[in-house]
């Protein structure tokens, strides 16, 4: 197992980044709300929900193919906000799941969202459906659901793998407005090809802050930006040190500078 004592510099960096995020969350509860740049995919959510209502067809939300982990919880958090809007318009939300625990949490999340919007009568437990725990049968289940229900909007948020394209292409075929967001980098190109809007990288984790404008979440986003600046600086330092070290070595230089650079270069090598 990996331990902090194997690579203390990595452990120090993790602690530093964690502290920055926690401090910014605590500070974020006070003072002015920070600015977040416009994210097209998230602005399109209301448009998609409105279109579904006009067409009188339901909204389908897929929380990925992993169990109840951080990524799925984030997806359900986003769905909660979207479902409030769907409920406000008096429309149906269908959530197919691949995991039993996710089914329970999704049912509670949607029940709360519909109750908060003053339409608890519109929530049906059967609209949150456990389909299977297998990847491709789940994709086929979602594809069948999109086709039978003639979904007008489809939200694909969570962890996805090879089955992502099956769901996204079927959604495209039935004419649904599709918004996808995933931290699975291998699936981003497929979503870009098949969906109308794609939320990339850390936008996925910024989504709830962007939609809710909650101060705690906004503070977290500011902390994350500081962390990324630190990582960028560390990456630049590594690039400069490595290039300089290579140049000095090739030109047969010696002395304390090359030793310092060697020390930095070794720091970046995996332990």
């Amino acid at each position, binding site marked *: *197992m990996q331990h902090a004592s194997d690579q203390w510099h990595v*452990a120090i960096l993790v602690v530093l980044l964690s502290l920055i995020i926690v401090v910014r969350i605590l500070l974020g509860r006070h003072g002015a709300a920070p600015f977040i740049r416009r994210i097209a995919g998230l602005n399109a959510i209301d448009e998609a929900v409105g279109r579904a209502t006009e067409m009188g067809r339901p909204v389908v939300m897929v929380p990925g193919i992993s169990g109840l982990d951080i990524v799925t919880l984030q997806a359900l*958090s986003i769905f909660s906000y979207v479902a409030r809007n769907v409920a406000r318009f008096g429309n149906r939300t269908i959530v197919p799941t691949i995991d039993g625990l996710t089914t329970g*949490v999704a049912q509670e999340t949607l029940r709360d969202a519909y109750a908060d919007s003053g339409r608890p009568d519109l929530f049906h437990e059967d609209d949150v459906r456990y389909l299977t725990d297998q990847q491709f049968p789940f*994709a086929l289940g979602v594809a069948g659901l999109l086709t039978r229900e003639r979904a007008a909007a489809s939200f694909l948020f969570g962890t996805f793998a090879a089955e992502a394209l099956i769901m996204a292409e079927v959604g495209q075929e039935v004419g649904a407005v599709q918004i996808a967001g995933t931290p699975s980098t291998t699936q981003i190109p497929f979503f870009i090809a098949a969906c109308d809007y794609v939320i990339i990288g850390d936008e996925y984790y910024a989504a709830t802050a962007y939609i809710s404008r*909650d101060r705690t979440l906004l503070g977290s986003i500011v902390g994350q930006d500081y962390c*990324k600046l630190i990582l960028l600086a560390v990456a630049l330092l590594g690039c400069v040190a490595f290039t300089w070290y290579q140049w000095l070595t090739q030109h047969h230089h010696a002395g304390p500078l090359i030793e310092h650079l060697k020390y930095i270069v070794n720091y970046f090598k995996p332990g």
Partner: protein
Amino acid sequence: MFHHFFAPVSPHTHTAEYVGKLLFGLVFVFAILAVLQAAPKTWRKSIIAVFTFLGGIYYAVEFFWPADKIGPNAGENWLTPYQPFVANLSAVVGSFSVGIGMISLLQFHTRAIARQRAGWGNSVALILCFAAMLTFGLLNQYAPHLTIIPPLLPFGPFAPRAQNSHDVFNFLYLGGYANLDAATFSLIAFYIASASYRAFRVRSWESTLLMVSALIVMLGATFGAAITGGIHPYLSPGVENPWANLRIERLSEWLLTQINAPAQRGILFGIYVGGLAVSLRLWLSLERGAYFDKEI
């Protein structure tokens, strides 16, 4: 103590211990659930926050506590041996999802049959398949040689062999499920073609760039080397040809390693920092959002 108590027990050789531990586990879980239900609503959030914190603190302390450098336990600290125990706790909670999922699935489809909703015949098919797989899955595990279908001709050189429960399970699983799964996977090829057709249309500067890049990478992975094979890598022995950098396989590699990989790493930096932030918010119960700031 933990190791001994949570060590695997065989139901065949230590039946009494197995049943005892099973009953203890069930009683313990239901007692915890009863305590949670009986607790005042204002306490529930605090109880969950404490359990969440305790669940995460093990991994944090285990990671930061210095590990032994030498000796029989090199690479471990005093908390490392409890790793399987903590992992088993997660596995136990995870295994509940199978049961919950099964109940949810059967409830939905039995309701669909009872109310004769549109497509209720599919629900009947699902329940029949479910029952068949469950029955033959269990028989395959516990009575694999049980004869299910007797030989049609009891004697003679062409008498077919009796089909036992293992054969029937294989027929259902390998002959049915595995083939359907593979067929679904193969559908992706056609969906890639239709998605690529839309994505690679020349509509804007960006889509043109995407199409050209994709073309180079695809050629680089197939017969691109043959197209630019005329560009020799060396002008003379030991002297590299600078034009050789325009060979398709080299352009393809450059695109993948110098353009695509850094972009992906940039995205991954953001994802990992975002994941760290969400994990911290959940672990320390700082999350405010969808369902975390509600009174449970």
